[in-house]
């Protein structure tokens, strides 16, 4: 029913225009974000990581996973011209593995964050807009979720998932389970933030005006309220990405994430930590890669926050 009432602009031909408008807004937001130094530096770091994630495997000198008996002889050697960051416990090239590891952590964290933000935004906006008893019940439910520590939630989801899901998924069941975990872990806190943003919009007169036109709640939430809280959503998303990166790496470290021999930064730190005294590069390199990505994301977040705080008049011009 709600779909029927939705403006055809949203459902049919207008979808393109809407997308175009959205991408224009994203570009404008990004250009504002890049006005600050922290935004620029953060963007450069994140872009570098993204570049490696996409093209890295093509450039990497060695295979990240395969090793021969020859390789085993050069295990745990230090940096050299052949192996810029040395080799790990199986004699594999650390640089190649770090570069290849960027891919899984980045896509898992980004998609996980997107899932969490989407769920949180829908729950938060709806609950805040509808209000009353429904709002109370939903928010108490959110409280229950919030009471679970993230890692515990992850253990629960992954253990259950690995046992119960019979089919094979690309690239691995664990990756999707981590995404779901991130989604569930981020939804409650995010829905709180979005709800309060929606509550600030709800009493405004253009929302009342839409009610007087007889618009459905669905239409008002997504067409009238949502565009006004996009800056909040953007800031939330960029903050949460760095949490997601840390959570993914942490799960990898605990062996709950991507399984060996797939290169994964968390897993690599865990595999090589016993050699820390004789071959520190093997554990430090993925750790540094992780750290620089998180710092880059955080710097970019600062820029995004700056962009979101600009008064409407300047943003719209």
């Amino acid at each position, binding site marked *: 029913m709600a779909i029927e009432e939705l403006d055809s602009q949203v459902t049919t031909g207008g979808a393109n225009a809407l997308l175009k408008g959205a991408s224009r807004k994203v570009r404008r937001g990004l250009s504002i974000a890049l006005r600050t130094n922290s935004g620029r530096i953060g963007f450069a770091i994140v872009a570098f990581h993204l570049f490696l994630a996409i093209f890295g495997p093509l450039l990497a000198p060695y295979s990240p996973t395969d090793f021969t008996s020859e390789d085993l002889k050069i295990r745990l050697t230090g940096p050299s011209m052949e192996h810029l960051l040395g080799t790990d416990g199986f004699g594999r090239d650390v640089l190649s593995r770090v570069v290849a590891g960027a891919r899984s952590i980045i896509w898992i964290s980004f998609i996980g964050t997107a899932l969490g933000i989407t769920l949180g935004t829908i729950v938060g906006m709806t609950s805040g807009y509808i209000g009353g008893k429904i709002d109370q019940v939903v928010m108490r439910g959110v409280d229950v979720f919030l009471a679970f520590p993230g890692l515990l939630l992850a253990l629960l989801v992954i253990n259950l998932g690995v046992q119960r899901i019979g089919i094979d998924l690309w690239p691995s069941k664990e990756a999707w389970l981590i995404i779901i975990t991130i989604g569930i872990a981020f939804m409650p806190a995010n829905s709180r933030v979005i709800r309060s943003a929606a509550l600030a919009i709800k009493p405004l007169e*253009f929302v009342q005006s839409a009610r*007087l036109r007889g618009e459905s709640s669905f239409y008002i939430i997504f067409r009238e309220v949502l565009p*006004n809280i996009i800056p909040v959503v953007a800031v939330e998303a960029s903050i949460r990405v760095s949490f997601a990166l840390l959570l993914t790496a942490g799960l990898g470290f605990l062996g709950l994430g991507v399984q060996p021999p797939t290169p994964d930064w968390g897993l690599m730190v865990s595999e090589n930590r016993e050699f820390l005294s004789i071959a520190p590069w093997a554990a430090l390199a993925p750790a540094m890669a992780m750290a620089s990505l998180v710092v880059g994301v955080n710097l970019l977040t600062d820029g995004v926050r700056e962009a979101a705080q600009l008064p409407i008049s300047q943003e719209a011009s």
Partner: protein
Amino acid sequence: MSQLSQTEGQLLELDRLAVTFYTPRATVRAVRDLSIEIRRGEVLGLVGESGCGKSTAAFAIMGYLPGTTRVDGSILFEGRDIAHMGDSDLRELRGNRIAMVYQDPATSLNPSMRIGTQVQEVLREHLDLDSKQVRERMIELFESVRLADPEAIGQRYPHQLSGGMQQRVVIAMALACDPLLLIMDEPTTGLDVTTEATILDLIVELKDRVNAGILFVSHNLGVIARVADRVAVMYAGEIVEQATVGELFKNPRHPYTAGLLSCVPRPPGDDGIERKLSSIPGSVLDAQIEGGESCLFADRCPLAQDACTAQVPPMTDLDGHLSKCLFPDDVHSGIWGESQERNKELIPEEPIPVLNAHSLRKFYGRERKKYLFFGPPVQQRVRALIDVDMKVGTGRTLGVVGESGSGKSTAAKTIVGLVPKDGGKLELRGQNLADGVQHRSKEQRAAMRMVFQNPTASLNPKLPIRHSIIRALRKFAGLSRDESRERAEQLLEAVGLDPSYLDRPPSELSGGQQQRVALAGAFAASPDLIVADEAVSSLDVSVQAQVLNLLEEHQRESGNSYVFITHDLGVVRYVSDDILVLYAGHVAEYGPSEAVLGSPSHPYTEALLSAAPIPDPEATQNQIRLEGSVPTLHSAFKGCFFAGRCPRKIGDICDTSAPPEQAGSHGEGHIINCHIPVEELAIIQQQPFQNGVSVT
């Protein structure tokens, strides 16, 4: 007016003051050319529309301008130039010799500190007194601003005081060190009309008592007329006219002043002919535009000639009356078209009113039990509307007036269905109206539209302005996308905006333009009734006049009706055929507008009328003053709703029983809810009346 002490020279002298803000995006010329003088014991009113640089001028005098600002010209205070003074010297002046009173008393006071602590802090900072003297001085100050019970006030927190009392405290703090110059920046703008009247009385009284010079900044000509000795009119950052208050209002010599005066709705003149409201087209020159060699007002001026854009007009002195116009002698009443008689034909009344509300009731809050879940119910619900009746005929306008808290907005929201009613009956063209808007039929929603107070909030800032208009057209008129676009363009033209505005974001429009877009959206479905909740209150007078004329034109053409909610009696007098006076959710008086505004009237109506500022310094008004603010009445309340503030209270009966509904002078259709018999009201209201000025 007050005697000017000839012996002392000028207290403050601004000479060709210009204030320019430099931002990365633009250069803003907030003040372009400002030359004024203030003597001791004199009130200079500074008046103009928003964006004319009034507040910037006030801040410049206080030396409160950010570092990136360029100040040209001089600000001489007792011969010393404030504009180029060091910080420590400025600090010495501020508070001690120059004090400022801001618009919003609530933000001038620290909400987490007791009033006494805040006032004493000021006294200790500036005066060398011991703690006993500080206390005495504080009480003396509270007495001087007529705060009742000055001992106890110091113990209270700002939120425990009404807006008027807060502003008195702020004024007391400003007076703490016997300043020579007081700057008041819109000190009554956020206050109710009744409270405004008492504060203005205080300022007039202080003027004679403290012998300080006062710069009184306001956009409201009626307020200026009441307090000022001399008036300077500011336009686009420069003074365009300056004269004594009587002279300026009677005989304006600059077309802008004449225009401002003709925009204000006022009662019919002695000849009984109701004049049309004129308006100033366009908007104030953008402060980012360089003026060049031209009169800055030329693009809006009906007298503009080629000469006006060829040179900057000099300030001409006409016997002490300064005007920055090349043709001051051509300025006379009528240049703005205001002498046209207003065409006020009414469509013949139809038997079934457009809107009929009967015994409308609304309560806020929930009923509670005495002991958590048990025991008898405690009557705690707040009366928002009690037994309100109203009828709006075809092509008529019902004005609803009252102070804030009187239930006006609740009435509007209940009628359009934004909040459910708790009792009574609502009918649109004889058909029952369901409670919430979602339960009403599409036809009913289309027939009744609402216009809100805040034009900026009534358009979605993230969507182009076509959105609301086109949605209304598609929802109500069932038009296709192309048809609705075409119709939306016509609607925009009808409200005097260019159709190209459709694709712009609301932020590119001024407040007046935004309100016209909101009107276009309301007109879209050809409604029978438009509920306008303070629709012109946030607009400048010239824009307000444009919008009022637009509403009237639309009514004449399409015969729709209005429920027009406002706190401005001048506006309500101008637009209404019938008037409903609300107080604390109760009907005080209801009837045809000439009956309600005439005598006899309910004591509350009488007080409102006497408080309303009239832009004519020679107007005579009774001084009936109401103290405090509208009370919150609970559902168990007995007695007359107005008894707590009524200046004409007759005795115990007012506290113990609800007033009877009496037919007013105009017989049926005119209702006065008061214990005093109508005949008696008629007699006592003929006599001059002035009540005390103390505040409780």
